[in-house]
């Protein structure tokens, strides 16, 4: 019973990281119907920026904020410069461009920072919390991780639901031509979507890297699991991204805890294959009715 509690809470905190990556993928997919394979690479890069700022200034939080801002800028910049020209072309072009971006960013990070593993500080203590003598399987940092992603998701929900910018984003996601005919400048909407996705990815990088070390490929495995979470939830559902992340995080935590940690990545990939075979539109897809 105690193991179960430990694995569940631990799964929730890693699941929220998958949720953050999944949300960033969903934001981009909804706006541009592009799957951003460079999302993990972008997050890796902004985490390096955070590490430099932290080492120079000694302030974790300054590095944290600078990395989020860098993610925002990087997302907007990449959309305007290399993604926009692919949107009027066959979908495969965008796929190749984002894979190229991933290779470019990882190569650039290797040139600038070298390939060695660097440790990255957590925001709070990573010592497991205890209730009396019972280990809870989650640390202060784990709580912060879950809270930060939940807060980001809640802010996004408010943005979508209650602001003109959110209405523009939703109208553009569901019916780009109708939005344009009503005067919505969808180019700006797409840039905003990429910027927000860059910010979410940067957040995920900051939260996960204390447990993985930082190196040019450090986000690859997390990206695959975040993508799996997005597919579980349905690639165009923000709610699905969060639920998918939590489901995957908890499920993989049980696999790692009860069956052995070697099996975690295999199980993640098996989950991806299973979802794609059984329910490719995901659990929460908003547009499945539209495709009928």
């Amino acid at each position, binding site marked *: 019973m105690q193991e179960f509690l430990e694995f569940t809470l631990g799964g929730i905190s890693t699941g929220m990281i998958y949720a953050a990556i999944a949300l960033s993928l969903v934001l981009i997919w909804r706006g541009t119907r592009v799957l951003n394979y460079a999302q993990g690479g972008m997050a890796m890069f902004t985490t390096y920026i955070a590490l430099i700022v932290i080492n120079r200034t000694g302030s974790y939080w300054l590095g944290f904020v600078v990395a989020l801002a860098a993610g925002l800028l990087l997302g907007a910049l990449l959309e305007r410069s290399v993604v926009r020209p692919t949107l009027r072309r066959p979908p495969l072009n965008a796929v190749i461009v984002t894979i190229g971006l991933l290779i470019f960013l990882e190569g650039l990070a290797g040139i600038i920072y070298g390939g060695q593993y660097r440790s990255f500080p957590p925001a709070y203590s990573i010592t497991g919390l205890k209730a009396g003598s019972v280990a809870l399987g989650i640390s202060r940092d784990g709580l912060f991780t879950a809270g930060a992603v939940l807060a980001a998701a809640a802010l996004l929900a408010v943005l979508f639901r209650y602001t*003109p910018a959110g*209405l*523009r984003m*939703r*109208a553009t996601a*569901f*019916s780009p*031509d*109708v*939005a*344009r*005919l*009503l*005067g*919505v*400048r*969808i180019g700006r909407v797409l840039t905003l979507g990429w910027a927000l996705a860059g910010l979410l990815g940067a957040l995920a990088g900051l939260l996960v890297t204390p447990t993985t070390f930082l190196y040019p490929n450090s986000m690859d495995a997390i990206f695959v699991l975040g993508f799996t979470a997005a597919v579980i939830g349905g690639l165009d559902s923000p709610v699905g991204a969060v639920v998918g992340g939590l489901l995957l995080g908890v499920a993989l935590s049980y696999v790692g805890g009860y069956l052995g940690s070697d099996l975690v990545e295999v199980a993640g990939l098996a989950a991806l294959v299973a979802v794609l075979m059984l329910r490719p539109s995901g659990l929460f897809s*908003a*547009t499945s*009715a*539209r495709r009928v």
Partner: protein
Amino acid sequence: MTEALAVEDLVAGYSAAPVLDGVSIAVAPGTITAVLGANGAGKTTLLRTISGLGRPRAGQVLLDGAAITARSPEDIARAGIAHVPEGQGVITELTIEENLRVGLLLRERGQRAAALAGTYERFPVLGDRRRRLAATLSGGERQILVIARALLTAPRVLLLDEPSLGLAPKIVAQVMDLVRQLRDDAGLTVLLVEQNARIALAIADQGLVLNLGQVVARADAATLAADEGLRRHYLGF
């Protein structure tokens, strides 16, 4: 007087088989012009080219005398042309009010609340169900919604593509009545594309007939409606 909307020698589609082959139209302010013709005559392409969803290969589109040819759809909407596309364009994933609010994004913040209230007063069917998803509306209600949404952008010219499509005759009459009122009360300029020539000519000031991308007839509405040959060849009533 300057035409509210003018189309000059518009050409669109591939050169071997142009969908529009030198179409010219002049629409006076505050009038309804019916564009008639069979399927494939180029009616929808004409509207899409005017509103910027399609690009012309040659020719000009003028709004109040100023060229807007081949600008982006969002810029053309901002210049004052509202295009209600065929198949309605309701955003079914949004609520009725959210659909209307997308139309309001063009307006100044201070005007939005009053404009929305005016819409609900005029169309109680929308006001009563403002929080429901637009997917729950019937075909006729959806047509009302998209026209109301287009009007919220405060357009100078309204482009309507087949508003009668798929609607029961009684609902069609209501929609056409609405279009007539918009001209009579608000002085709106309307370009009305219809396959149903009889109902379109009943409210239009002038009409023209498209066939294979060319204008084969143009006259005032009463003259077109009375022309036996045209009716038999192109209009089917």
